[in-house]
């Protein structure tokens, strides 16, 4: 294979995983504790739960179903045990995940005499068998073009816009040039920089979608009576030197590089094709990362200024900072130290080459600090009131 490559897990549907997780997926709030109990009984299994259930309506219900299904169908997941309180939702999620042709089994509380302990016992046996079967999979070489990156920033400071985000942008540009895909969200952090994003829109329709998404978020803040100062940028951002949302946004969008923007997708929606996309989604890291991973991102590049420990459970999340204080303090949180670029001891281009090498290494199996320390969670946003 010529050009950059990594070793991944080729799935029956042709997609590529950078991990081979067995997932315990609880699709109703009632069965979340059981999912976590099964997860503890089968070390190494990943657990995704939701606190919500039948009260969700409309777009909110559709988003929960889409995202939870997407976590199960995710290429980093080799096998899924779906559990839930009652049949219809479980059956629908299982049917959708089964389209990927990966092993998927279901257990329903109604069929276990409403006994969480019975559900735990049956689930543990299934998960254990899945774990053994999953361990038989082997990685194969795949080209860089098979990679799908999500980009996120959290607890930013001015070093993020100066170093870490442009560094990620350079890696993303190389990925897009190679035929890969990438997405970033945090719509409120386009505010003040939207003219630079619309200038890169692939067509006028995409430019209008970007503008409309920003105006909707700005309106949400205004209608809530919020002055964004103190909310976004938040107190940690401000203490570290950021002042206005415009300043934060101008730094934040650098993580998307310079490639054309092909479109704007909704939370947890799959990308229509290769290239760079935006996701119209909340900025708070757990919600944002959850949406990126549900859309299929296999790996997340997460920049921070002062430090941020949140990672995805399903997608290895590479933490990057250029802040010289944070990189000295947070040695078991930050996977990539870009403080040499901040101090002008290294060029951005050299650091970008090192970061791309780390991305390929992590995609091939090297663990991130977040994986080693089990910081991962995958959650779904809420959109509105429930019944």
């Amino acid at each position, binding site marked *: 294979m010529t050009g950059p490559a990594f070793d991944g897990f080729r799935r029956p549907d042709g997609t590529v995983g950078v991990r081979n997780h067995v997932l315990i997926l609880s699709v109703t709030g009632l069965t979340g504790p059981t999912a976590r109990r099964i997860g503890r009984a089968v070390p190494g299994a990943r657990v995704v739960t939701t606190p919500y259930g039948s009260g969700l309506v409309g777009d909110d219900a559709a988003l929960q179903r889409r995202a939870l299904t997407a976590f199960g169908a995710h290429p980093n997941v080799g096998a899924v045990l779906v559990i839930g309180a009652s049949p219809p939702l479980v059956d629908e999620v299982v049917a959708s995940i089964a389209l990927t042709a990966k092993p998927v089994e279901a257990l329903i509380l109604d069929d276990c005499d409403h006994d969480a302990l019975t559900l735990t016992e049956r689930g543990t046996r299934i998960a254990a068998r899945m774990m053994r079967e999953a361990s038989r999979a082997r990685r194969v070489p795949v080209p860089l073009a098979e990679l799908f990156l999500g980009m996120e920033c959290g607890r930013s*400071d*001015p*070093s993020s*816009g*100066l170093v870490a985000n442009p560094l990620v942008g350079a890696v993303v540009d190389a990925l897009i040039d190679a035929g890969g895909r990438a997405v970033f969200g945090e719509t409120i952090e386009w*505010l*003040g*920089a939207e003219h*630079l994003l619309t200038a890169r829109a692939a067509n006028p329709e995409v430019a209008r979608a970007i503008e409309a998404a920003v105006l909707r978020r*700005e309106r949400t*803040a*205004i209608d809530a*009576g*919020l*002055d*964004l*100062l103190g909310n976004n940028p938040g107190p940690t951002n*401000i203490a*570290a*030197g950021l*002042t*206005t*949302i*415009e*300043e934060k946004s*101008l*730094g934040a969008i650098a993580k998307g590089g310079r490639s054309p923007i092909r479109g704007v997708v909704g939370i947890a929606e799959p990308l229509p094709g290769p290239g760079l996309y935006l996701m119209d989604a909340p900025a708070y890291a757990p919600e944002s990362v959850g949406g990126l991973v549900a859309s299929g991102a296999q790996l997340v590049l997460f920049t921070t*200024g002062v430090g941020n420990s949140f990672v995805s459970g399903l997608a290895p999340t590479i933490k990057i900072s250029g*802040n*010289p*204080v944070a990189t000295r303090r947070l040695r078991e949180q930050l996977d990539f130290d870009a403080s040499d670029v*901040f*101090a*002008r*001891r290294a060029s951005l281009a050299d650091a970008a080459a090192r970061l791309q090498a780390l991305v390929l290494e992590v995609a091939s199996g090297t663990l991130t600090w977040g994986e080693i320390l089990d910081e991962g969670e995958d959650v779904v946003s809420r959109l509105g009131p429930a019944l």
Partner: protein
Amino acid sequence: MNWQATTLAAGDNVATVLQPIAAGETVAVWTAAGVIAITALEPVALCHKIALADLAAGTAVIKYGQCIGQTTAPVRQGGWVHVHNLRSRRAQAAGGAT
């Protein structure tokens, strides 16, 4: 490193300091047109911003070559530019823009 602060694009009227700056310190600032020297009027913490020129109240503050908000009070060259004298021009409640 032979400068202690940097601009990000031509036209910036603030610079980001790359190390903590003390009041009275002479700060070498990298700009596209060459390194310039500014005297800090007050302490500026790591990554915070220092004014490169006298800015009247209501002046657009430029970083990345883009407007990041406007001053709410006069700022002298070498002054610390932060949330006490810089406000967003966006997401203001009706009539709230200052």
